[in-house]
C-alpha cells in the first residue's frame, strides 16, 4: 500500500484481514480435495457425467471405483455398467389384496442395494391404510408396529419409485445428474449429483432419498455385485432412489428385483411391459388396476392392482 504511515495505526486491521482471508481459503480448500490427495481423488473430482464418458473413460472409472470399494469393504467388488436390453421396458405390479405389510421387501431392498444402515435409508415405504377409507394417503400410518400383521381392518400399500414415464424429478435437475434410461428406469449418477435436492421436492411419491451423512454400511453386509447407476455405495451429500434393481434385472439371464423375490405372499409382479404375452400385460389387461396420483400425469410404470 502506498499510504503506509496512515495505515500503521490500523495494523490490527490488516492482520485481521489476513486471518479472514486464511479462513476463507481454508473453507474453500476443505470443500475441495486436499492438495496431496491421491490421483484417484482428483480423477473422481474431474470425472465427467456418466452419459458423456466414452468407452475407455468408462472402463477407467469402473476400474477406479472397483479398486476403491474393494479396498474399503475388504472384498472383491464389481461395478458394472450393463446397458439397457433392446425392446424391454420394465413394469411393476403390486397386488394390494395380497400384501400383508410385513416389510420384508423394505429390508431385502436395503440389503441388496447397499443402503446406509445408520441413518437408515429405505427405498420402499409401506403405508398402513384403513379398509373403510380405501386408498386415502391422508389417513396412512407410516410407522405401524404391531406384533403381528396383517391387522384387522387394515390393508397395506408399499410405495417406492414409480419409474414414471413422464418423470417430474429428472426435468428439474440443474445438472442432468438424473435421467430416464431406454428401459424406463430413472437413474442417478452419484458422481455428478450436486445434492441440491430439487428432485426430492419435485417427486410426488417421496421416492428420492438423500445421504444426509456418511452412509454406514458394515463390510460383511456389503453386497459386492453392483451397478454404476444402481447399488454401488453412495457418497455423502447425494440423492439415491430405487432402480428396479438394475444390477439384477439388466443381466441376461436376469434376476427379479430383491423386493419381488422376497415377497412371501406373491404380491409383487415384475416384467417387460413390451412383451404382449408377459405377466405385466396380462394383469394390466385383466385385473382392476390403478396408478398412484394419476392426475399429476407422471404416468407411473408401477401398477397397483387387486387380484381378488
Amino acid at each position, binding site marked *: 500500500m502506498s499510504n503506509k504511515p496512515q495505515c500503521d495505526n490500523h495494523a490490527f486491521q490488516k492482520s485481521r484481514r489476513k486471518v479472514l482471508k486464511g479462513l476463507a481459503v481454508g473453507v474453500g480448500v476443505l470443500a475441495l480435495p486436499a492438495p496431496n490427495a491421491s490421483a484417484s481423488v482428483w480423477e473422481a473430482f474431474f470425472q465427467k457425467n456418466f452419459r458423456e464418458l466414452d468407452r475407455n473413460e468408462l472402463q477407467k472409472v469402473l476400474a477406479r471405483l472397483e479398486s476403491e470399494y474393494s479396498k474399503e469393504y475388504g472384498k472383491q467388488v464389481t461395478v458394472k455398467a450393463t446397458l439397457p436390453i433392446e425392446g424391454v421396458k420394465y413394469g411393476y405390479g403390486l397386488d394390494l389384496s395380497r400384501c400383508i405389510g410385513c416389510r420384508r421387501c423394505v429390508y431385502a431392498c436395503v440389503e441388496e442395494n447397499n443402503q446406509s444402515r445408520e441413518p437408515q435409508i429405505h427405498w420402499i415405504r409401506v403405508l398402513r391404510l384403513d379398509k373403510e377409507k380405501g386408498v386415502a394417503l391422508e389417513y396412512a400410518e407410516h410407522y405401524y408396529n404391531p406384533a403381528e400383521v396383517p391387522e384387522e381392518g387394515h390393508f397395506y400399500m408399499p410405495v417406492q419409485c414409480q419409474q414414471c414415464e413422464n418423470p417430474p424429478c429428472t426435468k428439474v435437475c440443474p445438472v442432468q445428474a438424473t435421467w430416464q434410461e431406454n428401459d424406463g428406469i430413472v437413474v442417478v449418477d452419484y458422481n455428478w449429483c*450436486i445434492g*441440491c435436492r430439487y428432485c426430492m421436492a419435485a417427486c410426488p411419491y417421496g421416492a428420492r432419498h438423500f445421504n444426509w451423512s456418511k452412509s454406514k454400511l458394515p463390510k460383511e453386509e456389503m453386497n459386492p455385485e453392483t451397478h454404476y447407476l444402481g447399488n454401488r455405495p453412495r457418497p455423502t451429500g447425494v440423492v439415491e432412489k430405487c432402480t428396479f434393481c438394475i444390477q439384477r434385472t439388466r443381466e441376461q439371464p436376469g434376476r427379479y428385483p430383491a423386493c419381488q423375490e422376497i415377497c412371501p405372499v406373491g404380491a409383487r409382479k415384475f416384467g417387460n411391459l413390451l412383451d404382449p404375452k408377459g405377466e405385466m400385460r396380462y394383469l394390466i389387461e385383466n385385473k382392476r388396476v390403478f396408478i398412484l396420483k394419476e392426475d399429476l*400425469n407422471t404416468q407411473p410404470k408401477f401398477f397397483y392392482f387387486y387380484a381378488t
Partner: protein
Amino acid sequence: MKNIWNFFKGTLVLTARGSTAYYCWVASLLILMVVGALTYVVQLTDGLIVTNMRDQVSWGFYISNFTFLVGVAAAAVLLVIPAYVYNWKPIKEIALLGELLAVSAIVMCLLFVTVDIGRPDRFWHLIPFVGILNFPQSLLAWDVAVLNTYLVLNLTIAVYYLYNLYYQREPNKKFMTPLLLFSIPAAISIHTVTAFLYNGLGARPFWNASILAPRFLASAFCSGPAFMILVFLLIRRYTRFQIKDEAIQKIAELIAYAMFINLFLLGSEIFKEYYTGTIHLAPMQYLLQGLHGHSALVPWIWTAMLFNFSAFMIFLIPDTRRNNTTLVLGCVLIFIGVYIEKGMGLVIPGFVPDVLHEIYEYVPTGMEMSLAIGIWATGLFVFTMLLRVAIPIMNGDFHVAKDGVGFHIGDNLFFLRKADRDRLVTDSEGEPTGKPGKKAKT
C-alpha cells in the same frame, strides 16, 4: 489499468478508516462471519445431518432465507423505476444505494444456496460448457443464470458510476442508461424465476398456485424498500450524506400499495383453499391452524400477519407515515413480517405434510441458525463496505487527489452523530468541518 489500481488502493485505505462506532460494527460482523465459517466447516465434515432437514422436509432454513433475500434484491428496482423511468430527482440521488443493497442481498442468496447443497465441491457442474447446466429445462438453472446476471449487472452499474465520480468525470449516459433500464426486467425476472422454481412442482399443492409469482413480487416490494428506508434514515443521521424527506415518503407510499396487493393476494389464496376444502388444504391448515396437533409455524405466521397488517395501516395513514418513529416501526414490522411469511412460511408448508402425507415437523438446529447468522453478517459486511466507499464518493469526500494519482479523503469518520462529528473533526484532525455534503451529480 493504473487508474483502476489506484482507485482500488484508495478504497482499501478508506474502508480501514472510520469512527469507533464503525469499527465496533465491522468487528462484530467479522466475529459473526468467523463463527458462521467455523459452523460451515463442521457441516462440511459431518454432512447436512447437522441440520434438521430430512427426506420429508428436504429444504429448510437456508432455502427460506434464500427465498426472502431474492425478494430484497429484486426490490432495488422500486428505486430505479421512479428514478430513471419517471426521472424523479429526489430518488435518483439515492437509487444507487438500492443497487448496492441488491448486490449484497444476491451475495447472501448465493451463499445460502451454496451451504444448502450436499456437494459444494461439484459446483463446477453448474458452469455451462465446463459442466452441464440443464437449461432451459430446470428452473434452478434459470435461477443460476438470472441471479448471476443480476449480480453482475448491478455491480457493473454501481462500480462504473462510482469510479467515474471518483475521477470527477461525468459517467457516460449511453453506457449507464441501457444497463439501468435492463436492470428493471432483470429484477422482476429473478423473483419470477424463483417463484416459478416452487410453482412448477405438481407434487406440492401449496406452491402449485398461479398466484405465487405475483405474491412474491408484491411482498418483495415491501421488504426490500422497508430495509432501504431504515438504511436511509441511518445514513441521513450519521453520515454527511443528505436524503430528502420526499424520497423516503414516496418509498413508504409505494410500500403501502405493495402491501395492499400482497395482503389481497394472500386473502385470495386462503379463500380458495378453505372454501373448496380439498385435501390440498392440508398445508395451509398446517400453516394457519396446525394439523393433527402439529403447529410449529402457527404462532409465527400470525405474528407475521399482524405485523404486515399493522405496517400497512402505518404506511397508509399519512400522519403515521410522516412521523419518524412510526415510520421506523412500520419498516421493522414489515421486514420481520415478510421474512416470516416469505421465508419459512412459504417453504416449510410445501413439505408438511409431505407427498405421502407424513408430518415431520421441522425446526432449524442451532448449527443452521449459526451458519445463517454468519451469512447475514457477510451480507451486511459487504453492504457496509460498499456504503463506506459509495457515500463519501457521492458526497465528494473521496476523490482523486490533485496530482491525479493519489487520493483525497475528506471524511475519516464516516459513521458518527453530527454533534460528535463537529467536535471531533475540529479537535483532532484540524481540518475544516467541511461544507455540508456536496450532492452527487447524476
